[in-house]
Structure formats: C-alpha cells, structure tokens
C-alpha cells in the first residue's frame, strides 16, 4: 500500500507501521491494508492509530517514520494502537509526571 490516504486513515510516512485516523472511524468501517481488507472492531477517534500490519510484542512502533514506542503485546492488523498495547521507549532524564499528575 503506497496510497497516503486509506479511507479515514492517513499514512504519515512510508516506514510507518501505524495509520492515523483523520476523522472518527466508526466500528465496522472497512480499511484496505496490505494484508487484506479488515473491519474495525471498535470506533477509532480522530488522531488515534491502528496497526498497518501485524506487529509483534517488542517491535518498535513507527509514526512519521520515527519510533514512538514499543509494542507490549502482539497487535493484529487494523487493531487500535494505544497505551494498552504500547509503552514509551523513552527514559526521562528528570522525573516526569504521568497522566494522573503523579510523579512517575
């Protein structure tokens, strides 16, 4: 797949293994991927990501052609990619606050 637009999803860089929703994609939306057409099993909000292809646990997640994190579990093509199945690969040099405002 080289088309930068696939239905409601954008491919931001050719090296990416995720696609980004440019509008909210409802559950059941068909998305043409290299592995074949998949059907979204949940609604994907705007700016959220899905897997462009099968991603194995430990793989680097790429967006903009750059690493944005590491898969913590196997991710199927078309599945939502977010905090539940990827983690940061970044080691902060000072203590940062987490999403709840606690020092982490």
């Amino acid at each position: 797949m080289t088309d930068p637009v696939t239905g409601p999803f954008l491919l931001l860089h050719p090296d990416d293994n995720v696609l980004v929703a440019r509008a909210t994609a409802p559950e059941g939306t068909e998305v043409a991927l290299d592995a074949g057409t998949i059907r979204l099993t949940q609604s994907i909000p705007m700016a959220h990501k899905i897997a462009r292809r099968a991603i194995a646990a430990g793989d680097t997640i790429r967006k903009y052609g750059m690493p944005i994190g590491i898969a913590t579990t196997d991710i199927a093509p078309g599945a939502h990619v977010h905090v539940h199945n990827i983690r940061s690969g970044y080691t902060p040099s000072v203590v940062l606050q987490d999403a709840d405002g606690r020092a982490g």
Partner: protein
Amino acid sequence: MEGWLRADGRKGIRNTVVVAYLVECAHFVASEIVAGFRGRDVQLIGFPGCFPNEYAARMMERLCTHPNVGAVLFVSLGCESFDKVRASAAVEASGRPVKTLVIQKAGGTRATVKAGQDWVSGALEAVAHVPRVPMAVSDLVIGTVCGGSDGTSGISGNPAAGRAFDLLVAEGAACIFEETGELIGCEEIMASRAVTPELGQLLRESVQKAERYYATLGYGSFAAGNAAGGLSTIEEKSLGAYVKSGDSQISGLIKPGDIPPTGGLYLMDVVPDGDVRFGFPNISDNAEIVEMIASGAHLTLFVTGRGSVVGSAISPVIKICANPDTYRALSEDMDVNAGDIIEGRRTIDQVGHEIRDLVVAVANGQQTASEGLGHREFILTYKSFDPIGPACLPRIA
C-alpha cells in the same frame, strides 16, 4: 525573486522603516509617530523594561539590522537603562539611516512626535533608493513555530510545514525550528540527525535543559488529555511538534540572535541558561516569532489548529491552518489550508509544495493574510543566555 541589498551583503524581502521605543514610557510617543504613516511600511517595535538586559540589547540590535529593515528611529524617554548609544552605533555601522530622539530633551510628547514624523518622512525617501538585486531561495532564512495547536496540528499542518522545510533546505535556505520544551522524548531521534556527534550531544543537552526548566516552573509534559487525543507516549506527543523540522540533517544549534552562517536546518534553543529567572521562556507566540526574526528569519511559518490571527513586525508570517473547520471559520486570516489533508483532498506532499511556493511568492513581495490585515505584533521581554560554542555551527569551507 528580487530583494533589497544591505551593506552587509544580506538581502531583504521588505524595506521597512522601524520606530523602536526603548522603554514603555516612550511607547505612546513612538506609536503616535507610526500612526502618521498608515498604509506605508513604517512599523513599531520596542522593549518595555527600564532595567538593563544584555539579551534585550542584543535582540534589538539584531532586529534593527535585519535585512528587511531599511532605517531605524529610536525613541527614548531619557533616563531608562537601555544603552541607546550602543544600539544607534550598531545600526549606523550597518550602513542604515538611524536617529535617536530623547523625549526629555526634545520638548515632550507633541514636539517629539513632530520631529519623529519629519525624520521618518525623510527615511522613507532614503530607503526608496536601496538597490534591488536578484535573490535566490538560498538567500532566505525561514523560521517555523506553532501555536493554538490541536489534534490536527501533528497530522496535517506540522508534517506539511516539515515537507516545505525539506524542499527549502534542499534549495539552500537556512531553516530554523524551536520549542525545545516540546521536544522532550525525541532528543535521541533528533541527535541521530545531527551532522556531527558533538552537535548531537548539544541537541540532547538543550532538550534536557528545557526539561529541567519547565519542571522547575511546575509543568509536566504528558497529560491525560494527550492520551484522550490519541497520543500514546511522550515521544509521540513531541514528534507531533518536531515533525515541523522535516527530514533533513540538522546542521546547527543556535540561540536567539545567532544568525545561521549558511543554509541548512537549525534548532533554536529558546530556553534561558542558568537558574530560572524572568519567568516563562516565551510568554506568547509572538515572542518566539521575534526570536526567529532576530536570527535573521525573512519570514516565519506558523502552524495553528485552533486558530490564530497574528502576524509580526519586520518579517511576514505565513499561517498554515491544520484544522479544516478552523480554516472555514477564520479563512481570511489564513494563508494555507492544510485541513485539506484531514479531509482527504490533498496529500502532505502537495500542501508542502504549496507552502514552499508561497514562501517564494511572499519573499517576492506578495502580502500574507496578516500583512494585508495590518497585523504587526511585537513583544520583547527579559531573558538570559550564555553564548553558543564552536561545535554548535557548521564549519564553512
């Protein structure tokens, strides 16, 4: 493309007469002088503080000797600490007409406004004789900032601005990106793009400095709202801003007022050195734009999602709207509709080319939306920096 040739060899894309107040007490008088020239290229800048500050002094010198500036009138109250003799000497050495009016000696408000307007009238005639010469993309310095960001900024406007930067760097322009405070988490990625390992280490350190600075101010970097907006990790959030820089190698690290010595991509470190003093590094978008201009930016790309209407004194601002709904609501204030990417009508690459072409058109005299509407925002505040070291800049053969 044609530009105005200055004595230092740099070329300007505008030919502005600047009126600069040197303390807030002289602001009104300076603005009254400028008000007499509506529709002419006479612009107001200034520094409000009465206490001396090396950063402000250096910024003012750089701004008043910017290639888009043809002549400078300084307006002083008389007792402020700003070193007006040094500022005036710097402009004079640059070969530009310069004049300093001191309100306490010139007879007060009315007399100073009259004397100022008389001088500006003469300066407008003088700058009309500045030679026009051919200008290439490789003569340009271009900055990029973002403000009023939303979920669309990182997937349409910023990648399109980055694509335009790739095209402009390839043509030999000097392109500057900044916001080290928003690059936390991508310092390793950025360091890997540096032309030398030494520069890579300096890029890393500049982001670590920002991290410490913002932590001291009480600002974390990744909030719950970011995850709701689809961002999964700190590095993903930062990359959304970083992607404005495009894919080119990073040639150098500069601080506000340092002028890129040659074409290429530069990171501007805008976070002050030393302990936290004077508050936030940049208190509003225009403070960032002014720093780009002090480093020689002929024009600045401004990516917005929620919407902004600002322009700038001295150098035009090209506003790139990332969000199609915002574009429809504020179209008169926008130059580029990157929302087309969101709506699937155009690709990032196509919008990137439009931005590159618009840079050339604006450099050749076409007015931006904010210029046409009369926007000339300006702000300069207190900061403190150590000078950059030799490893920060590319070696010139």
